[in-house]
């Protein structure tokens, strides 16, 4: 059986452990042995996006030590996949790794999800890194449709949800104004996304100010879009 390395990401490990477990389930169902490198921590993105390159490099070197180049790396986060594939190699000065965002990997592997969302209305939120840097936007939608979901479009699918890493705490007022618009734009449908950052921000805001459920793609595919 072919194998993949699962990169949980720090937010996945700490804040969304169920979503990571669901990602692992999907990879096994798709016919892969899942290896979890025990030494993994984080790709260094929080520091990198704040301009602290030395700090980012120190943490990113841990990523380089933890993962092997023999097997593809799959991660349930668009922005961490972007960091690990696009920015980390240059930052640390190493050869690129084979890094996949979960939905792109599953579609590439020909995976068909179970019909967990028959008749459910969901709005898929593109994380900016995944949309504009990885160019992955069709794959998560394809998986959701295959699971029976009815996809509704955001009024402005191109708009960022306002997370933006430390932007969310440097400019909290603007950040949540962007979240409110995103939450309202789903027209009452459950929001599904592939990025733990966007998810934590949108869910946290919805909990505080009201709004639809926000669910990780892996969870929507293993259980259902109602979580």
């Amino acid at each position, binding site marked *: 059986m072919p194998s993949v390395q699962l990169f949980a990401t720090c937010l996945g490990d700490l804040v969304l452990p169920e979503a990571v477990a669901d990602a692992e389930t999907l990879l096994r169902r798709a016919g892969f042995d899942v290896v979890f490198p025990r030494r993994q921590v984080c790709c260094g993105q929080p520091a990198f996006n704040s301009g602290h*390159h030395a700090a980012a490099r120190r943490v990113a070197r*841990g990523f380089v030590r933890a993962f092997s180049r023999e097997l593809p790396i799959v991660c349930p986060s668009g922005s961490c996949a972007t960091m690990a594939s696009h920015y980390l190699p240059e930052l640390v000065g190493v050869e690129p790794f084979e890094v996949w965002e979960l939905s792109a990997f599953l579609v590439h592997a020909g995976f068909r999800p179970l019909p967990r969302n028959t008749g459910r209305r969901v709005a898929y939120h593109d994380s900016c890194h995944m949309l*504009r840097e990885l160019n992955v936007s069709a794959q998560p939608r394809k998986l959701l449709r295959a699971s029976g979901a009815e996809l509704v479009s955001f009024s402005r699918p191109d708009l*960022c949800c306002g997370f933006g890493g430390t932007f969310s*705490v440097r*400019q909290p007022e603007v950040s949540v104004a*962007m979240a409110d618009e995103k939450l309202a734009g789903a027209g009452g449908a459950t929001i599904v996304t592939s990025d733990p950052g966007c998810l934590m921000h949108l869910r*946290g805001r919805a909990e505080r100010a009201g709004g639809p459920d926000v669910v990780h793609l892996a969870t929507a595919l293993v259980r259902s879009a109602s979580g």
Partner: protein
Amino acid sequence: MAELAQPPRRFREIARVKLADAHIQTALDDSTDRLRTHRLHAWSDLPEVQELRQRAHEIRMSVIDDLDGHVERFTAALSARGGNVYFARTAEEASEYVANVCRRRGAKLAAKSKSMVSEEIGLNQALEAVGTQAIETDLGEYILQLAGEHPVHIVAPAIEKTAEDVAELLSAVRGKRIPPHLEELTNAARTQLRETFLNADVGITGVNFAVSETGSICLCTNEGNGRLVSSIPPVHVAIMGMERLVPTTADLAVLLKLLARSGTGQKLTVYTTLLTGPRRAGETDGPEELHVVILDNGRTNLLRGRYREMLACIRCGACLNVCPVYRKTGGAAYSDVYSGPMGAVLLPLLVGLQHAPSLPHASSLCGACTEACPVKIPLHELLLDLRRDLVAEGVASWAERVSFWLWSWAWSRPFGYRASTALARLGQPLAGLVGPGRAWARVRALPRLGRRYRDRR
């Protein structure tokens, strides 16, 4: 002069005010959406738009790689056609030169068409000091002048004003009630401005592009005011940033194909005026004197490294219209002159990071700006580079640097990660009380830290 330096708190403070104003939020949403949609339509009508963007990028970079050479060639070509060229190193030098022209001509009235560079150098105040009244003739700029405000968008300066706001301002000038209908508002402004065009002693314009080969300047306007201002008064002063140059008229055609399409979705602006020197013997139109002021004002700072790409900017405003941050905050949060992603990149480079420390962080780095830029400036990556420089140059706060250092020390080894996150889990009840946790928790629920995935496996 207009202050380009921005105190660290300005962005957040002004953003808060704008967010609380439902009227401005609606105006920003509607206007940016409209401009953005028009651009997307205009781009989709242009089958070769991606090749054109690449070509435009190459043209702009070829100028920037030999900027001195282009300034020299332009100066020689225009001087040969009887124009005066003045190179101003600073805003003060530029304002002083224009003020001297006005003083020498005993000018009482200067008619201005839209120029962001004139805003940058605070020209109107400098002219006032020598007794020349400057009147804006671009409708949006005129409205703002009446309101005593600064432009909040580089292309649509009065984007936050509604028809009702404009009616109120114009009614005060005309001394009678003008109803808030587009046609009547335009008529009222036209009647008022007609006098200015006819009586002005000096006409002042910006420059959209200047052609180094021919010494021509190109003005793009929709109201025709640029053409009147540059042809009726006996003196025409045009002010341009030193990076406005393009090599040839063929290159100009490429950029004109993209400028209006990207800014407003038009194929071309209603008026595209190409001027080469003042009126010559035997000609009936045009000014007796033409002065072109070429402004540096910090632009040569951008020539180092990757930031030179910012000099390729053609000031179309496309990045503002797609920016999810700009459409919430409006332009004033960034500065009184430049705003949105282009402003967030340009201002710190012009004045130094320590004088605009919050602007590189005034973005969620979503990349919509880079995607919309017709000359392919990697705006969000330049913001990322500026953040790196904030840290490298010691502008980022001590607390921030210590926090990231401690974080990286702990998270560079699995043990440190496990220990620090176990502590964080214990400290959860306090997380919302200090620092970033507090900023988060004020407006959002904090996530709950349970058993880590790695411990469940």
